Structure formats: structure tokens, C-alpha cells
């Protein structure tokens, strides 16, 4: 529960609204020129979702996102720093928030910017004189990065430039093991901590809102909603008892994430391709890989794209983050998830793990080690009834993938009637998982994570 007022601070009020923080001062003149040419607000989807480069000249405007769009709430206000009242200066949590965009994550931003150039002298003075003023970097769009020492070095430079206390510089990231990475850095540089790193799961926090919005929009005799001219549907509880004709669903789309390509290859090698629905689109990287790897050429490149409901990969990429249509989900019993990353060094959970929960599917995940452990920590149920989940702790990616495929084969060797029975036994868990997503949204976990991080 958030008991203290939070003010997201800005320095520039502009014709398009408050200029999001995070622009280097040296870029301000050109940025103002760009602002003069535009008509939208900073929260306009063209800017917020970063379609800038493709459709109009929004490059400079999409250097950072508007944080209030992410955290809109009654006790969170937007303020120009110099408009703060005496009480607000002394008592509220006052935050300069610098956020990622779809084009540029915080890692890229920090590495390419002069971190000492983000704030005016006036703002720096407020930070220096008031410990309840903080700078918060929010990497809410992506995650799972190898944060190199130079990344932390640049944040350290920012801290030193202003003279921040350690709790005045906060980094929120979807990389769940960020503190392990940060501690390694501190050990390497033999430094004391100078900032707060807080793991977060923005893809999990936002899912419940989508479910609530969906259910509010669905009317009687209509079982779908339309966003941007595309129909989406999610199953009702009374739809999930029907028998299904396939075992699994594995939506992989982007084969550039090479572990997905190997996963599909292994499914094909084990004669599992026809047991479920699999998607995997073409990519330059896989085409290139197939020049050396004959097996990938034969099993993947010569046959793909593998599609389920839509053939156009750009169209699929532009679809809703959490939804598609229920058909393929209601015709299969479980999901094989090819997460964004399967590497050992970090832990990043995305909407790909969340979709099976929305569509009442048990799941097996080819992701980072300890993904299941983290999901359980967050209150979700996993499915040892279906799979030996010890794969979750196998550090080696190949061995983990082989284990996963073996577990999938085990289920696929059962009859569909047997799997149907097994599915019935985990129904309470499936219902719990979807409800839990809604609970996370309603309990304002996203806000609490922010609050806890900035209240340290």
C-alpha cells in the first residue's frame, strides 16, 4: 500500500505537455525545435510506443517515455520541480524518472549518453539538498541484458557528479537477478554500493489490467474484443472442459532468438511437430546459421515459416502483447514457451510466460534458469503434475532444452484422453494463475515495487 505522495518531476513544460526526463541538455535545442513541429502529446501512441522512426520524425521525441503514462494514479502527481510547495519538497517522494523506449532500453541509453547531462543545475541542487529527491531509471520495455561494468560506471559518475546518497539513485529493471549482477560489479571495482537496484516484472504487472479491460468490454452474445481493427478472444471458464485434438501450442514467432529455433528443431527431431501447433518465422540469422548447420537447414529453413493463425510476421509482431484468439489454445492442452532469453546470466520473464496463464494452459518454459522458481515466488502455480520441473535449475541451455523436449515427449506419448484427465486435475491451478494476474494488478504490485524501491 502506498502511503506517501509521489511526485514525478519534470523540468520542461512544453506545447506537447511535460517533456519526459532523460534528454541530455545538449540535445534540448534540437528537441525543442522538433517539439515545435509536432501536434501530439508525449503520451500519444505514436510517441509512446515509439513508432517514431517509421511513420514520422519522432526520433528525438521518443528518446524517453512519459513515466506518468506508466504509473498514473491518484497519489502520484506530475509536477514541474520548481512548482513544488514547501511541504512537497520536504515530505513527498520526489522522483526524476528516466524511462526506456521501445527503440532504446536503459542499457543502451546509459552507455551512449553523458549521464551527468540529464538535469539542469536547479534540479541537481534539489537532489543534493533533499534526500527525498531521487533519480529513478525504469527499464520497463525489455529486460534480460548483460549489464557490463561500464554501465554501472556511468551511473556511478552521475551519482558522484551530483553527490547523491546511495538511496537517491534507483534502477528498476525487468532483469530479475539484477542484484547479483550489480554485486559482481561492486566486487570487481571494489566499491561500496552507490545505488538501489530493484528487480521488477512489468510484463506480469500489466497483464491483469488487460484481462480486466477485456472482461469489461465483452458483452453478451459476443465473445471477442477489437483493438486496432484486430479481433481478440480469451476463453471463458465454461469453455475449457471440451476435449482437444492436439497436445501442445508453441508460439515462437521470432527465430532470431536462436534457442527457439533449436527448440523447434528438437521437437521436429523427436517427431513431435504434428502433435501440436508450432509457429516460427524466417530470419536472417537462422538462414545464415543453416549454411553451416545442415540439420537446421533440413528441419527448419527448408520448411519454415511455421504458422498457426497468421502468415505475416510483421502483422503478428504488431498484435496485442497478451492476446490473440482462443481457437488454438482451446484445441491444445499445454504450452511450450520459448522465452525471450534462455541464457544463464540473467532472468527475464515476459508476456510469453503469461499468455498460457490467460488462456488456461499448463506450461513448460525454455527460458532462463530459475524462471519457474521466480514465478512460484511471485505466487503463480507451476505444473509438476505434467512435467519434471527440475529442468528449471539446469544451467546448461542445451541440456535444459533436451530435458524439456524429453518431458514434452513423455506427455505426447500419452493418449489425448489421458492428457485430458491430467488437465482436469490442474484446473484449480489454471484458474488461480489467471486470477492471480488480476490480483497483482488490483493489489497495485507495480506501484508497490516502485514505492518500495524509492522508499529505501
Amino acid at each position: 500500500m502506498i502511503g506517501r505522495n509521489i511526485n514525478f518531476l519534470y523540468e520542461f513544460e512544453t506545447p506537447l505537455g511535460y517533456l519526459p526526463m532523460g534528454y541530455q541538455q545538449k540535445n534540448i535545442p534540437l528537441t525543442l525545435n522538433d517539439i515545435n513541429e509536432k501536434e501530439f502529446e508525449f503520451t500519444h501512441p505514436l510517441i509512446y510506443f515509439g513508432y517514431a522512426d517509421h511513420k514520422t520524425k519522432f526520433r528525438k521525441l521518443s528518446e524517453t517515455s512519459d513515466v506518468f503514462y506508466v504509473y498514473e494514479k491518484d497519489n502520484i502527481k506530475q509536477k514541474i520541480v520548481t512548482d513544488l510547495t514547501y511541504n512537497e519538497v520536504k515530505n513527498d517522494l520526489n522522483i526524476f524518472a528516466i524511462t526506456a523506449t521501445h527503440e532504446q532500453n536503459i542499457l543502451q541509453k546509459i552507455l551512449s549518453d553523458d549521464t551527468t547531462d540529464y538535469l539542469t543545475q536547479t534540479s541537481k541542487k534539489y537532489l543534493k539538498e533533499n534526500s527525498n529527491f531521487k533519480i529513478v531509471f525504469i527499464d520497463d520495455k525489455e529486460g534480460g541484458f548483460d549489464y557490463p561494468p561500464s554501465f554501472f560506471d556511468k551511473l556511478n559518475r552521475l551519482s558522484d557528479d551530483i553527490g547523491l546518497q546511495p538511496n537517491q539513485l534507483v534502477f528498476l529493471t525487468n532483469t530479475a537477478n539484477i542484484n547479483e549482477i550489480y554485486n559482481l560489479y561492486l566486487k570487481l571495482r571494489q566499491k561500496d554500493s552507490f545505488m538501489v537496484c530493484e528487480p521488477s516484472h512489468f510484463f506480469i504487472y500489466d497483464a491483469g489490467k488487460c484481462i480486466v479491460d477485456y472482461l469489461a468490454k465483452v458483452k453478451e452474445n459476443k465473445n471477442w474484443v477489437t483493438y486496432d481493427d484486430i479481433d481478440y478472444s480469451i476463453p471463458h471458464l465454461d469453455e475449457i472442459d471440451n476435449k482437444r485434438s492436439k497436445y501442445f501450442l508453441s508460439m515462437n514467432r521470432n527465430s532470431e532468438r536462436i534457442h527457439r529455433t533449436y527448440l523447434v528443431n528438437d521437437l521436429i527431431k523427436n517427431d513431435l511437430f504434428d502433435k501440436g501447433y508450432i509457429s516460427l518465422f524466417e530470419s536472417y540469422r537462422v538462414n545464415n546459421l543453416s549454411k553451416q548447420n545442415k540439420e537446421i537447414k533440413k528441419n527448419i529453413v527448408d520448411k519454415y515459416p511455421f504458422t498457426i493463425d497468421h502468415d505475416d510476421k510483421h502483422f503478428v509482431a504488431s498484435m496485442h502483447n497478451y492476446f490473440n484468439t482462443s481457437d488454438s489454445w482451446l484445441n491444445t492442452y499445454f504450452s511450450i514457451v520459448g522465452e525471450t532469453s534462455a541464457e544463464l546470466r540473467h532472468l527475464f520473464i515476459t508476456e510469453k510466460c503469461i499468455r498460457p496463464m490467460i488462456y488456461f494452459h499448463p506450461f513448460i518454459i525454455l527460458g532462463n534458469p530459475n524462471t519457474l522458481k521466480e514465478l512460484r515466488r511471485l505466487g503463480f502455480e507451476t505444473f509438476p503434475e505434467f512435467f519434471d520441473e527440475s529442468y528449471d535449475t539446469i544451467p546448461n541451455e542445451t541440456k535444459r532444452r533436451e530435458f524439456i523436449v524429453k518431458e514434452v515427449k513423455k506427455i505426447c506419448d500419452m493418449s489425448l484422453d489421458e492428457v485430458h484427465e491430467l488437465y482436469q486435475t490442474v484446473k484449480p491451478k489454471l484458474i488461480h494463475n489467471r486470477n492471480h494476474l488480476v490480483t497483482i494488478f488490483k493489489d497495485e504490485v507495480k506501484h508497490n515495487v516502485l514505492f518500495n524501491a524509492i522508499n529505501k
Partner: protein
Amino acid sequence: MQSTNKIYKLYDYKVNGNILPNGFNPEFIQLLMERDFDLNGDFLQKFQETYNDGFNVWNLDGVLTDNMLLDESIPTHKLAKRHSNHEIVNNNEFYFYVVTPFGGGSSTFGYPSSYSSGRPFFYFIPESSKKLIREHKNTYLLINYGNEGSLDFHWFDVIHYNSKLFDIPLHKIIFVISDFTIEKNYNDYCIKRNHTERIKVFPTLWSLNSKSNEYEQLYNEQKTSFGSFSNECSICKKDDIDLDKERDKHFLMFNRRLRPHRYYSILMFDKLDILDKFYISYDFETCKTYEFNEDSYKHHGRDKGFRDELLEQDKKVLSGELNKSIIDYDDLPNVWGFNFEQKEPYMDSYIHIISETNFFENGLYLSEKTWKPMGQLQPFIMMGPAGSLELIKSYGFKTFDGFIDESYDTVENNEERFKLLINEIERLSKLPKEELKNWYKSIFNDILLHNQKLLIDYKNIDKSNVRNKFLDLFR
């Protein structure tokens, strides 16, 4: 009467508590950034030094707020949001996107210079704000030149051209200036250019309220200040005046920048050998802003005989014989119209010669100079544009016809009016001081105290008539 209308000023940018003037060129914001957007202090001076030009626009909204033409400021993005949400526009709410030309106006209107690169302020109005002016029913572009009284009519060419270029309807533009002949002059301009579509123009008066404010403070013995200047100032009160005392001089006349009419009048007073009747300030060494010659006089008159008389007299200026005269402050270039008030010269002379800003220039403009003698209990002669006395009287002030021949006020021909004024001053200079003293005594209560009271009270009087007249343009 309390008005139910609300008049908003729209602003685009606010940084660190400072509203940046609308229409500034963002490419030249570096200097402001270095100062953390502090517009005060020596910013303008530094800008001039850096770019060899003045900042093109500035925040000078006093004339609008003083005359109830502005209630409060709101950011354009808030109105833009309401507009995009199709909120119904309240007919009693008016929004003005105010651009205030600064630095003489040449940069503002895009005359080639290092700063604006030939682009007028229209180029620096954000698209979103242009859209508001274009589409939002009660939003207008207000060009606020209310702090000045004389304009270059080519500016109207710039306005008309850019209105078309940027698709801002002319009826959505209003030009405010301290010139009470603006309606006639703009009408003449439009006839000359065959313009049927027109902007709106509105005359206003900044100086009366400002001087009223200063004199009220002085009257109540509060300290006044102007920029970095803070002098000990004083104002004549009723009890200061000894009506039976004979004063030292006939006239009092302040001249700082030696504009043509000031230049000529000093030459004439010298020629008439009446300078000893004056407390008069001038400095031909540091304040000579006008190059007087045969050619330059062509802009002021056609009487070659009179011109040659002046030119003959000018030899004394050129030789240094006629050089400098001071009254109260020695450093004339740094004497300003506010916060340099000393009552003594007024108490020791009878008639004030107001050397207004405009005389030969276009524009019926009353600056702070007009109100000085009224604040200091002194009768006056107006060396300014024709119609000045009539305008002064329209505010309830009394003048001195009868004792002083004020027919000069109706003479439109500048050269003729100038000669009439010189003749009248010469006539008055020959009057014995006893006569002046008696006259002064006779007008003290009815005119001088009346004028002073009216002036001091002005800042607090209801100005809703000005506001209503202004809003009538948009109804």
C-alpha cells in the same frame, strides 16, 4: 462591475519556474540553458554580446494585465488537450497566444539579422499552438507591442504574408500597440495594399498605470525600484508647495535621447536666447542619437528657411559650444523614466515642457513622460504628437487652455505644430514670474491637485470599459 469573462494568456514553454516568451527561436536557447533558464539579471545584455542582436521576443505582459486584458496564464498543452477531447468552448473564455516583439521589433518580424536568420516569429510558434489558433474558436494570436508606440508598417506585410503561409486566419490575429491612431493607420495601410481581409488592431496605454503605480508608492513614502536601480526618490505633495514663493525658472524640460524634436527645440531655445529660463537636461556628447543634416530634415518638414535656421544653430553643437546641461542626474545615458523622480526641479520651475518619445514619428503614443508633471504638480506644454492633449483629457485630466494657447494640439502638420510650440514657449518665456506665480496659484487646486489625485488613483480604478471594448472585437 465584476466581469464574468475570463481572459487567458497561453504559454508554450516553462522551465524551472520561468515562462519562456512565446515565439523565441529555440536554436538560440543555449545561453538560457547555461543560466539554468533564469531570464533575469544580465541575460539580455549577454545575449546581445553573444549574438550581436537582441532577443526577438520577451515577456512584457504588464500592459495587458494592467488594463485587465489578461487574467491568468495557462500552458498551451492543457488547452490543446481539451481541444482534442472536443470540449465545448465557453463563450466567456478567451485565450490569447501572446507574442511580444522585443529589441525594436526587427528581429521579431524577421528582418535579416544574425539571430532570426530572416525568419519572423511565426516560424517559432509550435505547430500545436498554430493549430489551436487556427481551430480553437476562442483562441487568438495577440502581437503585444503595447509597450511601444511607433511601428514599421512593413510589419503588417510580414503579418499578412505569414498568416497565409502558416494558414492562420487574419481575423484570428490582433495587434496591440500604444498608438491611438493605429485603427486609422492600419485602415490606410489596408486600402493602400488592397487588403480586404484584416487583422484586428487595438490601442492601449501602458504608461499611465505604471506611472500611477510608482507615484502611489512615492506618495505613501514607499521605496521604488526599476531593474537594478534603487534611488531615493520624492514626489511633490500639497504641503510642499509654497504658493507665494517665486520660482527660479520658467520651464523644466528633460531630454535624454536627442530625438529630432528635442534636438531642434534645444537649438531654437538657444537661438531665442531663452535657455536661461530653463532647467533643462541634454547631452550632445553621449545622447546624440540623431544625425541632423539637410537630408534628414526632409522627413520632418519642407520649410527650408526654418531648416537653415536650425542648421546654422547646429554649428554650435558641432563646435562643442552647445554641449551638455544637467538638472538632477549627471549620467544621462543611465537615467530612466522610472525611479529617477526628484521633486525639487518641479518645485523651482513653473511649466513643464513634455518632450514625448514621438513627435515627427508615426503613432499617437503617450509614454511615462506625459505623466511626470501631473504627478509632480506642474502645468505642462505637450511637445508630442497631435491629439495628445485630447487623449490626455479623455482620461479626465485637465489642461491649461486660456493661459497657454493649446491650439497646437490640433495641428497635424508636424513642422507647423513644432513652430507653433516654439512660438508659444517663447511668448511664455517673456512673461514675468509674478504672472506665472499668480497663474500657478489659480490652477493649483482645481487642476494640479486634481490631476495628481487622478493619476495616483488610476491604478486602482475600474478598467472594465477597456476590457469590454477589447472583448467586443471578438464577440
